């Protein structure tokens, strides 16, 4: 059952599709053709054999003479030789004198429908078999006899049907031969056309599993689209792969120093006998683990942001909501709980197309940085500038040094030598989010203080 389901859900091969399609076409075509051929054959057979009837009837009509005022038929052999050309058919004939008296021939034969001319063809039956008849009227205007003599000649339709079927059979035989040729050719062409795909498959199979470089193969334009798609996919895969690699190496790098420091503190605490000194060491241990946990938060959020930037769905977001959320969120505050934070948002919505979670993470990091390194009071806000929609954080300090600003967002940049505060990481998260949504991270120092902003292309309000 499951196997059958699997088999039926498996798509047909192109060759099979082609064969099925062509077969259907040939079948329908064959049906139409055979109907047409039969119709044509019947018409042709009727024309041909009607001529025999005309010839025979005229022969008989010509053999009528008036003897002593009475029409006399001297039935000619030639008429029957002519009709005998339709070898298997039976012959009906009748000669009618005035008042439809039977002069000679069969007693009862069907007459043509009323209102026909001197030569009338009609279909009727002859002792149980379908037959084709002709009636020819010959008019006499002689001294002894004046009037019409009708000659009726009929023939069963065996030869006609045979000929019509013969024509149909020949037409169908041609179609079958042609169809087989077309089918064979089509299968051959499909095989030829699919060869680049097979080559592609072969080269993919031969590839090193870690080789995610684009495929460079000369393929027909139809296949090129697929190759491009594969290359795009491999590019994304490669990016993800690199991100993971970076994340792992960052994590290792960033965690090594604080963990080593904690371990040293712990060693120290274990060896310390003085209770006062031990308590001081425990306090340092505590603040060290807090920093470590914050670092971990940041690293996770960065991984989340980088992951979502490539994959998350973009939605219309009001940056004011993000600013409000971050302002309300207590998390960043415990870096410097006593610091003063303001919210500055306007009346008009500041719409962008982005992922709300990523933006929130980025804004939290920016606020966290300002709380950690800047000078209170700190303001968070969102507005629409000439450059685009801005989500910004400002403090009244001088900001980082121009050199530090220059390395803004680099992965391993940290505030000062060896100080593991994660400020570099926070910026790098903000930068990554800004770039993921086609924007940038801008920083400026002015009289009002230092302001850092995620600037995104504005989304017109729906």
């Amino acid at each position, binding site marked *: 059952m499951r196997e059958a389901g699997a088999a039926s859900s498996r798509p047909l091969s192109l060759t099979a599709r082609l064969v099925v399609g062509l077969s259907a076409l040939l079948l329908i075509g064959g049906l139409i053709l055979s109907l047409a051929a039969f119709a044509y054959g019947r018409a042709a057979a009727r024309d041909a054999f009607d001529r025999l009837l005309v010839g025979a009837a005229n022969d008989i009509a010509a053999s009528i003479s008036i003897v002593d005022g009475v029409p006399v038929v001297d039935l000619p052999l030639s008429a029957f030789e002519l009709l005998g050309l339709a070898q298997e058919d*039976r*012959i009906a004939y009748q000669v009618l004198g005035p008042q439809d008296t039977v002069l000679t021939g069969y007693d009862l034969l069907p007459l043509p429908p009323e209102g026909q001319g001197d030569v009338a063809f009609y279909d009727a039956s002859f002792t149980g078999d379908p037959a084709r008849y002709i009636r020819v009227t010959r008019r006499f205007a002689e001294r002894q006899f004046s009037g019409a003599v009708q000659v009726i000649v009929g023939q069963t339709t065996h030869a006609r049907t045979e000929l019509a079927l013969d024509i149909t059979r020949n037409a169908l035989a041609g179609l079958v031969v042609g169809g087989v040729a077309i089918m064979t050719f089509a299968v051959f062409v499909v095989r030829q056309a699919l060869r680049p795909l097979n080559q592609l498959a072969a080269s993919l199979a031969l590839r090193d599993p870690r080789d995610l470089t684009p495929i460079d193969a000369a393929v027909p334009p139809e296949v090129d689209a697929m190759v491009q798609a594969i290359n795009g996919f491999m590019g994304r895969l490669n990016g993800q792969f690199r991100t993971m690699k970076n994340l792992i190496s960052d994590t290792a790098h960033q965690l090594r120093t604080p963990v080593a420091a904690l371990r040293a503190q712990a060693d120290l605490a274990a060896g310390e006998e003085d209770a006062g000194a031990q308590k001081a060491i425990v306090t340092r241990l505590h603040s060290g683990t807090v920093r470590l946990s914050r670092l971990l938060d940041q690293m996770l959020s960065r991984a989340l942001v980088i992951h979502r930037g490539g994959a998350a769905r973009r939605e219309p977001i009001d940056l004011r909501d993000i600013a409000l959320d971050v302002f309300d969120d207590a998390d960043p505050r415990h870096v410097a709980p006593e610091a003063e934070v303001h919210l500055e948002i306007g009346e008009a919505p500041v719409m962008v197309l982005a992922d709300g979670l990523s933006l929130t993470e980025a804004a939290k990091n920016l606020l966290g940085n300002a709380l950690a390194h800047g000078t209170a009071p700190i303001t968070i806000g969102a507005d629409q500038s000439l450059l685009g929609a801005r989500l910004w954080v400002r403090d009244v300090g001088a900001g980082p040094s121009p050199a530090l600003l220059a390395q803004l967002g680099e992965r391993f940049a940290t505030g000062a030598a060896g100080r593991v505060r994660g400020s570099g990481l926070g910026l790098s998260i903000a930068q990554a989010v800004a770039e993921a949504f086609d924007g940038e991270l801008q920083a400026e120092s002015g009289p009002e203080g230092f302001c850092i902003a995620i600037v995104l292309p504005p989304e017109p309000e729906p």
Partner: protein
Amino acid sequence: MIQRLLIGLSLLGGVFAASVHAQEAVAHFGAQGATRSITLRTTTDIAVLAPTMRDFLANRPDLSLRYEQWGSNDLYALTELDCKTGRPGADIVISSGVHQMVKLVNDGCAVSWVSPETQALPDRLRWRDQVWGISREPAVIVYNRNLVPPEDVPDSRFDLLDLLRPEGSRYGGRVATYDIAASGLGFLFAFMDSQEASTFGALMEAFARSGAVATCCSAEIIGGVATGDYLIAYNVLGSYAMQAARSDQRLGIVAPADYTLVLSRAAILPGTEANHDAGDLLDFILSESGQRSMAKVHLASAPSAPLPGADREEDDSRWRLIELGPTLLVAMDQMKTAGFLARWRAAIGE
């Protein structure tokens, strides 16, 4: 049975009543205890076909055969009546009146039978797989050897004309032929003669002038020649003549050199459904052993086989096989027949 038949006929309007007589003879073949039986109606004398019938039944112990011998016109009328009334009559009909058999086929009174034996027949002896020519019998001139001097023996129709031409010829009133009004076969031969050559007109004229005798039946004519009542008989069926000549030294036979008509007796299976035993009989007659048996009674000499007085080397065109086909319908046309008979009667007044 015949009484009933006659009553039926008169009820039907009696067109044929006048011409339908009792069959000439009846014979039964086959074992008493046979479970199946077929009826053969034929113009052929019982004695002629009896050996063939016995050969046929030899391997069929459960089959018997009723053999009815009829005159050709009666046989035609009866078979046509059977066909029109849908009454089962004979299972197989074999007649020398082949035009009548063709007419019956054309009227849809016969059924088809296809077998290797029938397929082996030439087209000219087979029509619609419903009528088959089972024999080959030439129409010959029979003369009395004792009374006709060798120099007078007519080798062709022209010789016969020359013989009858002189005023007061000793052959006047001593030449016989079939009465074509009474014999379907005689009519057919005369009709084919009229289609074949212009000699026929002259021949009729000569017959008329010399007072030729028209009489019935092959046996009667041949007997008349043997006894010397007639010196010469024209258009006699060769099979009967050769059979008679075998035992009677007085009879001489000539196949006319100008042309010789060859008749192939026609067989049909009447009715609407073929009787298998009747089909078997047909196949047997057409088979090699059947033809051998027929050849013994001179029914199956091939058209080109040597006949007494005929040269083997002669052109085949001399033998005119009467083909089985729709053209024979012309010989059945009422008006044609009436006209032909009128001419005949005018020539050979009875």
